[in-house]
Every structure is written in C-alpha cells, then in structure tokens.
C-alpha cells in the first residue's frame, strides 16, 4: 500500500523568469455569483445589479464587477503562484480591456517577470508575475502584475502530513 502525502504550490526555487503557467479549471460566472459578489461587498453602482440600467448605458447585460473578475482570475492562479506564499505584496497596472458578463467563462494565465531573494530574510524570495484573464472567446478581460513573498524549499522541507494535521490525517 502506498501512502502519498500531496502538497500543492510552487516554492521560490520553482519559479524561472519567463515561465508561463496556464492556470487550472476556468470558471463560468453565473448571474447568481455576479449579483452575490457585488452586493455582498457593498458595491453601490447599479450598473452591476440592475439590468435595465445597464442596458440604458449600452451594455447587453449587467457587466461583472471588475473585482469579481480580478478575484476569480487571481483565485485560479493561486495554486501555481502563491499557495506557498507568506504574503501577497500588491497589485500594479491592473486594466480591464473588455467587459465580462454573467455566463462568461474566465480562464487565467501568468508569466514570471522577475524574482529575487529577500535582502533581510534567508528563507524567502519575491516573485514578480503578470497575470492575464480571458473569456471563452479569447478576449482579454483583465491584466495585472503582482508581487508575492514566497517560501524557499531549502528552508521548508516537506512534511509527512498536510499543514496542521499533526495527528497524521
């Protein structure tokens, strides 16, 4: 019988400048999620939850809240980029070249722009990436850069259990 302890996420050593990661899954954003997200986070612009209002401004439907687009694209990128991160440092140059609508399916991909070791702490490094989100027709709906503080494999050897499951899950 084989026991395989699975771990997900890249460590600092696993990133190479220029690498491109097509991210997993893709996600269709339903109308329910679109309205849930924008109202849950207190967005006050009826453009995102009033279809008549959105059409009066020339949209075929209520455009998705831009931060729902960002969060889903970001979420799909985590296993490749930041599942082993110590912190997410920030966002740069975030743009939304085309609107996305309920029913659209989002896909994500990232490229490593740069990496460097931490100057103060030997157990970590900073990885600089650019992430792009596209819809089912290949149209770009978001693009942004991100910097991530990532653990080094050399400082964090593999464990024999999932994080937190000391009893041996």
């Amino acid at each position, binding site marked *: 019988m084989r026991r395989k302890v699975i771990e997900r996420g890249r460590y600092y050593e696993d990133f190479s400048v220029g690498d491109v990661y097509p991210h997993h899954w893709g996600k269709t954003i339903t109308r329910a999620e679109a309205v849930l997200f924008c109202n849950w986070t207190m967005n006050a612009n009826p453009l995102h939850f*009033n279809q008549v209002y959105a059409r009066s401004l020339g949209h075929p439907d209520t455009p998705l809240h831009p931060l729902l687009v960002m969060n889903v694209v970001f979420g799909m990128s985590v296993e490749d980029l930041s599942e082993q991160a110590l912190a997410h440092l920030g966002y740069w140059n975030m743009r939304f070249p085309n609107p996305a609508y309920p029913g659209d399916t989002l896909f994500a991909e990232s490229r490593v722009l740069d990496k460097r070791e931490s100057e103060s702490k030997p157990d970590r490094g900073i990885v600089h990436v650019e992430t792009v989100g596209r819809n089912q027709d290949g149209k770009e709906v978001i693009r942004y850069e991100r910097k991530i503080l990532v653990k080094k494999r050399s400082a964090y050897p593999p464990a024999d259990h999932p994080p937190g499951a000391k009893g041996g899950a």
Partner: protein
Amino acid sequence: MARRMDLQERTLLRRLAERQLAGKKLTRGDNYFEDFQVGDVIVHPRGRTIGESEHMILTNLVLNTAQLHFNQAMCDESPQTTFGGRRVVYGGIVFAFVLGLASGETSENALEEISFDEGRHKAPVFAGDTLFAESTVLETRPHPHNPQAGIVKFLLVGKNQRGEVVFEITREVAIRRRPQGGKA
C-alpha cells in the same frame, strides 16, 4: 455562455431601457464627474466588520486555494509563516470591501473602472476587524472618447477600527458628467 447581441439589437434594448427608466432617479446627484475637485478628501460614511466565516466563503467562491486564509490548524502549527498563527483575510476580499465602502461617493455614477495601480496591503486584516474607506482626488480629466464622461483618479485607502492603513491603491474611474436638460 453569454448571449452575444448585434449592434442593432443592443441599440433597441438601450432605447427600451431608456423608456423604462424615464422619470426615475436611481443614483445620487452629487457624485457626477463635475463634483470632484483635485485635493478633495472624501471620508466614506460606513464601516464593515468582516465576519469569521464570510471571508472564507468568499475566498473559496473565487477558487483561492491558499490555506493561510482557511486552515486554522496550519496557522496554529506554523505561527512564524502565518501572521502569528492567525488566519489572515484574503487581500482580494479586503480590496473588494474597501472599494465597496467607497463606491457610494465615487462610483455610483461610474461607467467603468479603468485601472488600478500601486496597490499595497499594508497591514493584515483578521475576522472581527472593521474596515473603513477614504478617497483622495488626485486628478480629473476629460474622457478621451466619451463627451458625456470624465476620468477621475483617486487614491483609495482602507483603514481598520484602530485607524491603521491596511490597504491602498490608486484607481482611475470613468464617471458620467451631470446630465443636461433636467434628466439628472
């Protein structure tokens, strides 16, 4: 898959929607493009406490698989790599709430969020913290294509209940100009 519409269909829907909204006043009249002046600091009126389970639900709803947001046992085991053993709220959720808190005064009449830049999570947010928002008007300019809108650049700042800055980002928004002819 979202239904694609041709231009003619979209124009007809637009005219119909305009008729359906005739006489209705859905948004405030004090947050059009003309209402923003460079240097204005807007202190937004509401705070929002982040609940214990809601931030984990939102984190998983958007497919974020980073366990430091939803595995407390891992945080207990490794306090040195997880904000002192506390489960930190995923930053994208902090960003969304801070933007939401600011939206009533800055983007209720927006046509589009154009860009965000220089975004920084400056301090961690945990369940039970209450977020507040402030916006500073950095720049205003005409919209390059739409004469009925202008672009406002804001510095958006999120603070916690102790007044500490937890998040900041610059933001460019296309905002409608005040409609002429009493259609405000």
